[in-house]
């Protein structure tokens, strides 16, 4: 399913949701799509194992969901618009999800966004965020 876009220089830290990802992630995204319904969200919370089984998640997808690993879910074909519905079940917003993917605290992630508002470039703000995280462990 390689298209002409795939010959372009990769974008660091970025995973394009293309045909390969869409095919790979179909089951996981289908489960997340079902979370538009409140009863389905409750069913997931009541019995996560059974709910995931009902959607035939692949072992890789099931593991990523069990570990609440956003990057794992993306690697398994998850699309962020659908994964956001899963995150919502746990009361997580996009800053929480950003912090999970960048490996920093939510406060540090928000500070990185505010730094860009204060005129820093992404590279500057991101570099400072990672540097701070190393100092504080």
């Amino acid at each position, binding site marked *: 399913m390689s298209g002409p876009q795939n010959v372009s220089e990769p974008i660091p830290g970025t995973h394009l949701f293309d045909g390969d990802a869409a095919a790979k992630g179909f089951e996981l995204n289908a489960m997340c799509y079902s979370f538009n319904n409140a009863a389905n969200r409750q069913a997931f919370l009541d019995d996560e194992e059974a709910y995931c089984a009902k959607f035939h998640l692949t072992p890789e997808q099931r593991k990523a969901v069990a570990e609440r690993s956003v990057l794992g879910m993306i690697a398994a074909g998850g*699309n962020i618009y659908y994964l956001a519905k899963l995150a919502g079940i746990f009361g997580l917003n996009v800053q929480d999800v950003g912090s999970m993917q960048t490996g920093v605290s939510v406060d540090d992630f928000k500070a990185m966004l505010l730094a860009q*508002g204060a005129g820093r470039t992404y590279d500057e703000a991101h570099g400072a965020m990672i540097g701070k995280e190393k100092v504080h462990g």
Partner: protein
Amino acid sequence: MAEIVGAYFTSHVPAIGGAIHKGLQQEPYWKPFFDGFHKVHEWLAQVKPDVAIVFNNDHGLNFFLDKMPTFAVGAAAEYHNADEGWGLPLYKPFAGHTELSWHIINSLVEDEFDITTCQKMLVDHALSIPFELAWPDVEAWPVKIVPFAINTVQHPLPSAKRCLALGQAVNKALQSWTGDERIVIIGTGGLSHQLDGERAGFINRDYDTFCMDNLSVDPAALTTDSIHEMVRKAGTQGVEVLNWIAARGALGQAPVQEIHRNYHIPISNTAAATMLMEPA
């Protein structure tokens, strides 16, 4: 003949809906964004549109990955919002303008745009939030809508060039519409932001400025990059600027002037922007 009164562009970050719901508009975090709407309210009160052509993108409410149209056009009498899964308030329904929808659809297909037509279409925060921002505290929306959903979710996405051409073809359709409506064009989403991957939190003021500077005077300048390069510059979700480009196309090829701009980083993970344009 119907008149195109101008275009309104805005970001549609879900958290904006939460802020409106909780009345946080004057809180320090939100004020720089919401203050950009005084001018929008003033302008809309002046130009009094009664129809809106809206270019937006679905976020997994109406379309799932089993069927993903590149360009979908609504042809419904009513459009409803529904539970998106993460606790947003439910938004008011919209009245459709079915006759105008079918007129546009006929014209687009005649012009060889192979669109998908939708007699039922749920609309999500990408459509509702721009309306909540434009017409706060109304009982019912003062305009009927013709919504376009552009695929910004699953690659391959339509090129910026194709989105501009789609908008221009919509403008051509409006030129042959014999009604006397006052039409506002709306483009929603963007600007730069990225929610997913290790680069989550990416924002690009320089690229956003380039887009805003050129959108009114030289929209073709926004169409020279491939989608891949647009993702590099705008972020994975920043490609929603495609909605703005299509909307700009629908304003037509006669000169257009920017009459308002507000830009603020960050709203949630996003560089939030609002613009107004009018025929020059």
